[in-house]
């Protein structure tokens, strides 16, 4: 929630702004601006055009950061000249990223819409890190999010003692972003009730927050560079639909589910590699296992096999993020309970939990897939044989 994030935000911002941010190993996860600090710094040093104030990088360098580039950059990091490769962070349609960057440079805010697990938050984090050097000014939308979480609240004890003063005001991430001219991330905006969402209308149109309790300083104005990246799950559409007034202030960018096998394998490979490093699990997952994993998820998602057979689709979301989660679970299983190397059987054991969640009828869907598809492939492909046997065993 907002209040939990804000105490760390100042530290993280300053950390990201320094040229040599120290990596803290005792954190489960570091924000993008810390994890990729060297890449961001290298891009800053090599930026071909001056960035629009107060962006940290020019739009082209932001694009290069998100999509990666072949050219390895030379940069001075911690006093030494080093080669810094720029890795690809987002896999999918490059034009989507271009449109997102351009939106953030314009008057309108950005709303990334898509199925769960399509990388909306991931893209949002990297855009904020590259543009503002800070991805942690975040509001997580829920049914319990209030206007205070968006704008500001008060230190009640001090207000009782001293009355409302600027010092007693506790700014929410939006206000911090406005004051510092940075990007605010608003996750799952459509989970907030409409009244709370509408608090954003004046922020986006007037670029200001009114504080009526402070007669002498009752307007907080946004500095240039302030904008909002919101995300919304397309499965939530219609629950708390944005009002027409708010819709008008957002450019929507729909992030589709990855359709082709190659891109999905790329995503699972890159993201699982990163996660394995974080959990200190040695070695990447072999390519054939990744291919098998991506194939299973893609076929179950689309309801059709590569041979053209129609199959049932599970009720749960079979996203690329789920595939990445399945790959990590399989690697953890192999590391601690298996032979150390991730095989098709490890994938199969962990697949059940990814597919069967709320609806037990999905057991039948998975069984059908195993019988109609995996079993047939198992007759000619040893990897599929291992997969089929382990999955059938896991399902009982």
């Amino acid at each position, binding site marked *: 929630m907002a209040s939990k994030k804000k105490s760390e935000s100042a530290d993280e911002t300053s950390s990201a702004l320094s040229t040599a941010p120290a990596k803290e190993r005792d954190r489960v996860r570091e924000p993008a601006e810390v994890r990729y600090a060297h890449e961001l710094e290298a891009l800053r040093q090599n930026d071909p055009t001056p960035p629009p104030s107060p962006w940290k990088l020019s*739009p082209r360098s932001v694009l290069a950061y998100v999509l990666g580039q072949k050219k390895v950059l030379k940069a001075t990091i911690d006093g030494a000249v080093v080669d810094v490769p720029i890795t690809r962070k987002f896999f999918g349609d490059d034009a989507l990223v271009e449109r997102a960057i351009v939106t953030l440079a314009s008057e309108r805010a950005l709303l990334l819409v898509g199925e769960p697990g399509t990388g909306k938050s991931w893209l949002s984090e990297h855009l904020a890190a590259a543009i503002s050097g800070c991805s942690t000014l975040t509001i997580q939308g829920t049914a319990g999010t209030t206007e205070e979480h968006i704008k500001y609240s008060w230190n009640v004890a001090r207000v009782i003692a001293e009355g409302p003063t600027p010092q007693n005001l506790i700014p929410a991430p939006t206000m911090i972003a406005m004051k510092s001219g940075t990007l605010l991330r608003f996750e799952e905006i459509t989970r907030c009730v409409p009244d709370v969402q509408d608090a954003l209308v004046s922020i986006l149109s007037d670029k200001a927050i009114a504080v009526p309790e402070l007669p002498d300083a009752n307007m907080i104005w946004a500095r240039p560079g302030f904008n909002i990246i919101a995300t919304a799950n397309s499965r939530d559409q219609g629950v708390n639909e944005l009002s027409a007034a708010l819709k008008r202030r957002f450019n929507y960018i729909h992030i589709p589910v990855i359709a082709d096998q190659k891109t999905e394998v790329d995503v699972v490979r890159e993201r699982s590699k990163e996660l394995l490093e974080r959990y200190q699990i040695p070695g990447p997952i072999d390519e054939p296992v990744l291919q098998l994993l991506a194939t299973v998820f893609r076929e179950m998602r689309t309801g059709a096999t590569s041979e053209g057979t129609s199959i049932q689709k599970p009720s749960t979301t079979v996203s690329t993020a789920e595939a990445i989660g399945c790959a990590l679970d399989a690697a953890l299983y192999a590391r601690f309970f298996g032979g150390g190397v991730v095989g098709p059987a490890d994938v199969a054991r962990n697949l059940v939990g990814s597919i069967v969640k709320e609806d037990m009828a999905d057991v039948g869907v998975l069984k*059908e897939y195993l019988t*109609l598809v995996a079993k047939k492939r198992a007759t000619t492909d040893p990897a599929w044989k291992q997969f089929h046997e382990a999955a059938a065993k896991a399902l009982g």
Partner: protein
Amino acid sequence: MNERAPHPVVDDVLTVPLLGAGLDIDAVRAATAKVLADDVCWFPVRHHSPTAALHLRKAMLEKRPKVLFLEAPADANELVKHIVDPKTKPPVALYVSYRDDDNVTGLAGIASPSPDVPPRFSAWFPLMAYSPEYVAMKTAAEIGCDVVFFDLPRSALIKEHETAGADGDDHNDVEDAGVDGDDQSEKRGESWEALAVRSTFYAALAKSAGFRTWDECWDALFEDPGRHQTWRAYREDLAAFCAAVRATTPRSRVEQDGTLARERFMQKTLTTTLQERGVDGKDAFVVCGGFHLFLDRDDVVEPPARRPGTHYATVAPYSSFRVSEASGYGAANRAPQWYGLLHDACDDSRGGDADDGAVDAMLKHIVAVLRQGRKEGDGLSSADAIAAAQHAHLLARLRGRRHPVLDDIRDALISCCCKGRPAEEGAHLVQAMVHAEIGNAVGRVTPELGQLPLVHDFYAAVDSLDLGEVMGREKRLTLQLDLRKEEDRRRSVFLHRLVHLEVPLGKMLDERALAGTLFSERWSLAWSPKVEEALIEKNLYGDAVETAAAAVLEEQLAKDEVHAGRACQRLVRSLNMDLPGMMLRLESACGKAIDEDQRFVSLADAVVALLLLDRHAARGALAREALQTLIERAFGRACFLIPDVSSVAEEDQSAVVAGLQSLAEVLLGTSTEGLDKDAFVENVSNAATISTVPFLQGALRGLLCEIRAVDATDLADRVAAYARARPDVLVQAGPFLDGVMAVSKTSLLLGADALVAAVDELLRAADDDAFKTMLPLVRHAFERLHERQRDALAGHVAERYGLREAASITKLETSTDALAEMARIDKRVATIMKEWAL
């Protein structure tokens, strides 16, 4: 002009890909310089490129050549005067056709329906008002310059049968055949763009610059009118680009697709024309695809000659839709209206400005899209237009462009105006974008050109039948006809004749639904340039729509006399087309075909067609007795052929089942007098017994049930029998049930209890593997039923498993005191809710 103008494309964009494709940039520059230093002024263009047209016009006005050589088929040269006639308004198209009367290509029977029908080939060359070729011709007329079409006639490009076979490339062969009215010239890869897209240079360029499509690449490099300050700079940049494409295109490819043959013809025509007319090279101007600038000037091989046969060329009205990609035209213009807007906004002779014109055009286009979107129901405001324009500018800048190109504008509109998925929430917007990009312009050709007799007769009929509303616009019109009215009957006859001639003006709606109605027809009419194209093609059959229709019918009749189904369907058509002379001939042909035809499906089709005719007999002055005899003969022969089709291959099964259903429907109908139901039942029963195909067994048994020849419990017994069979037989219940459901719907529900019990028994008997083997077909079988029928069956299943109808549920008894207490509580709750303002 000796000083070198800036060349933004070569200087800024091409260096990396040239290196990527292994090319030496200096060599490319040298090749370009050599061509551009030629006395003759070679001007490279792309079809429908407005910017090329703008620069080209400036070049011609400055150079004032005496002869203009244009890349268009030489045998259409006579048409130039009609194209530039002020009464001709683009979009129009050059149309050339060739009929191989003596089968010199050896393609009769391959590219034509039969060996005795000569193959016909045709091609279209569309011209928009801003097409460089059209602008060049208009400018030539303005400055008194002769125009010479110097491309090889189409007929010379057709590959002979033997040659085509030797290539071993079936795909190319089919396209080379270029039969009947398709835009084969473009599909065949004659457009140099097709070669460019496949060149390694373009691949390297797209990769390094991030172009998603060839169109985006072209627009970014060559469709920004202000990017090149002079026509010379534009020409030099484009020529260098084409030099790189040419250098990375294998010679075998240009040899195979006919490019070399065409270039030999171009070079020869150019040289001989200049010699014959005594014109100096400096007074000649060439407009052609950029690829051809680098043709081999030392090639001494003779070009192929025009083939003997019937050649025809004309100019016909065309439409912007037909020029667009949406129509499937090979070398399409993806947004004809948008490029027209761009051209006009940048044309200084129309008050436009090359530098600001692109922005002006973009704003007009965005406003047009939003206006159309509002018509479609989207709430789009001026604020959206402003946001989209700003977004397009920023996108263009991010992508390294001076001004937004169409791709940037499309992306901007989607970003700013589409609140969700483009295919769903943005469907109206996308439609509006397509509408604004393509437009609905239709061209006109000068009356001086004259019309072919069939075309003339067609337009005369359109006028006399008051169908003029549909002409000259690509808008669909629905026409309801009452055949009891004389004018509507004449319209119906005319439209049926056009359908038979394959002239795509109208399509009959609800044909099946109206099959039983005697006096109603509904037609959907829409004019398109294809109408004129088909009329030109069919002119060879006759001078009037009526005689041409009769001639086509005659030709078809000669081809398959022994096909009862087709013969009888033609009889129906001749009735609809009001061709009484043909009907008498067809009636006798039908009798012969019915007697000789050994195909069940064909005979079943014949029965259906004859019954339809019988209903309309009064209208067509047909002898009903003769018809009744034909029906009985066809029905009887079809019945006796049923056992022959009891075990046909999978690909023929659906046609057989459809034929069986047709015969069953006939028996269930009202006109069954004289039809032998017993023979049908007996033959279906025999077929079911001898059939080895479970799906057909199911269909045949289901059919018997449907015509009440057997009881539904019989079907259920057979399903239950599978349950008690060996596992390998048990799994055949899947296709059997699929066959049953394919034909039997109503009767099935009558015996639903028994069938549900049988299926239940079957599923209980099947082990896991057998169940999963049967599952896809059982699922498919039940999906054949209508939702209501499925619900009814589901009701039987529910009942079988203990659920009861609401009516049979025991009513909950309660006391009067309890009811009074409940009413009191209810009232109290209502009061509380009222207090709470709920």
